[in-house]
């Protein structure tokens, strides 16, 4: 443990990242470039989020790490272990107890509170990229708030599918200004981005960008008047805890084609079950 600085990165690097974070908080939704460092894990593992977490952690923090809503996947477990080892901080699986949450692809179901920081791992930070590959041009579009192209994408979606079929990484406009990719969270989570009491930070390692949604900032999902945004989810209740309002994953239960829908947020599901809630399959699994 002693061969590392606290939270692995040296103090100079953390200061540099914190400066980028402060800038990102000052201009909500704006992508701030930063000098991303090599981390002892592959890029696909969320090195951007890991660096932001390292720059924010203090010894008193209690860290939660989730991947697709689950605390127990390989990715989440190894990032949690990494910070246990390099920062010696306490960890938790309980959303309500965490001071800092690093996430990939989900926002926890339990409403976040003041003082919490939610850190997203971001693969591709630029929402305009797929239609405009030139970085010089996308920067200029952001600078001029020239966002017609974002609606061209949604138009194409409806023309092809009869509805806006984009179901994750659904583009948003932050504080009435910058259009932002909220990372590949399901669009079901988009409403939780808005007016959250928590600070939300986004880190893209390979692309070297940090952006932020400060607490109590308005975040609007782009749409058309006649095709309004809908935060949809599978029309089922969780088979384990019975919740019909949480985001669900479809799980294969046997090799005979058996399947069921369960909460993607494992902490949310466990907390409900501990409180006595049960779904249709609660027996089978327990």
């Amino acid at each position, binding site marked *: 443990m002693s061969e590392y600085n606290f939270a692995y990165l040296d103090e100079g690097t953390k200061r540099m990242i914190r400066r980028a974070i402060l800038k990102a908080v000052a201009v909500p939704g704006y992508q701030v470039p930063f000098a991303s460092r090599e981390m002892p894990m592959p890029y696909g593992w969320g090195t951007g989020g890991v660096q932001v977490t390292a720059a924010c952690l203090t010894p008193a923090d209690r860290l939660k790490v989730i991947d697709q809503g689950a605390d127990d996947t390989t990715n989440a477990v190894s990032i949690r272990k990494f910070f246990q080892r390099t920062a010696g901080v306490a960890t938790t699986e309980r959303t309500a107890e965490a001071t800092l949450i690093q996430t990939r692809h989900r926002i926890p179901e339990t409403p976040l509170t003041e003082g919490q920081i939610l850190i997203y791992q971001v693969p591709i930070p630029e929402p305009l990229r797929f239609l405009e590959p030139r970085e010089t041009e996308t920067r200029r579009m952001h600078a*001029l708030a020239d966002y*017609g192209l974002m609606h*061209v994408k949604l138009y194409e979606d409806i*023309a*092809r599918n009869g509805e806006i079929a984009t179901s994750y990484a659904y583009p948003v406009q932050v504080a009435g200004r910058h259009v932002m990719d909220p990372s590949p969270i399901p669009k079901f989570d988009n409403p939780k981005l808005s007016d959250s009491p928590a600070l939300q930070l986004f880190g893209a390692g390979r692309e070297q960008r940090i952006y932020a949604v400060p607490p109590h900032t308005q975040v609007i999902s782009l749409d058309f008047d006649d095709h309004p945004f809908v935060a949809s989810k599978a029309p089922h209740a969780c088979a384990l805890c019975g919740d019909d309002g949480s985001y669900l994953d479809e799980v294969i239960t046997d090799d005979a084609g058996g399947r069921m829908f369960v909460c993607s947020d494992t902490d949310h599901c466990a907390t409900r079950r501990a409180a006595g809630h049960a779904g249709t399959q609660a027996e089978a699994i327990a």
Partner: protein
Amino acid sequence: MSGAHPLLSVQGLTKSYGARRGCADVSFDLWPGEVMGIVGESGSGKSTLLSCMAGNLTPDAGAVVFDTRTSGPRDVLAMPEPERRMLARTDWAFVHQNPRDGLRMGVSAGGNVGERLMGVGARHYGQIRAQATDWLGRVEIAAERIDDRPAQFSGGMQQRLQIARNLVTGPRLVFMDEPTGGLDVSVQARLLDLMRGLVRQMGLSAVIVTHDLAVVRLLADRLMVMKDGLVVEEGLTDQVLDDPQHAYTQLLVSSVLQV
């Protein structure tokens, strides 16, 4: 506003590429509803001049004064960029020689036509689609092709799609750089007919760059002849073509007659 001033007033426009002259000291007025043709041999500075006027290229000197809807004549080159961009996607249009430069090849025909509408704030899918359908019809593209990508279109159709994409916001001024270049003669003729119809119906003002004298004969009210970056002759189209004064223009006209 309209009528009292030229729609566009170009004053002393000059652009060099290092030591090489692109265009030098070009001045002219374009009145509402007027079509100006610019002709000249390859390398004479036509595209340079057009790009400087349209704001795609920054000139070394000169002014481009446009009679804006809201605040009258303004030097476009001195406008803040957001304002110039807004102008470029509302009141102005630019038709490129190569449709690939003027279209989004990865986006459907309907999306290409709808982009300018969405760029100025249209947020009703049904209305955007209805307007796109209407414009495809006006440039003689079947409505059922609305969801096809430009790559599935012929060269002539791509060029017509580019025109629809540009005219959908009802611009007042259109810049065109060799709009019929690279097309078969029969396809050219159809496109010219279409352009002439649209210019008349919409009362468009236009600046058309070409080296094809047949194009200007058909479309342009007035003509500027360029050589080595300079305007050597200017006047009413028929006058210049039928009774050229400058030796270079005489050469240009006669070489066409020999074809």
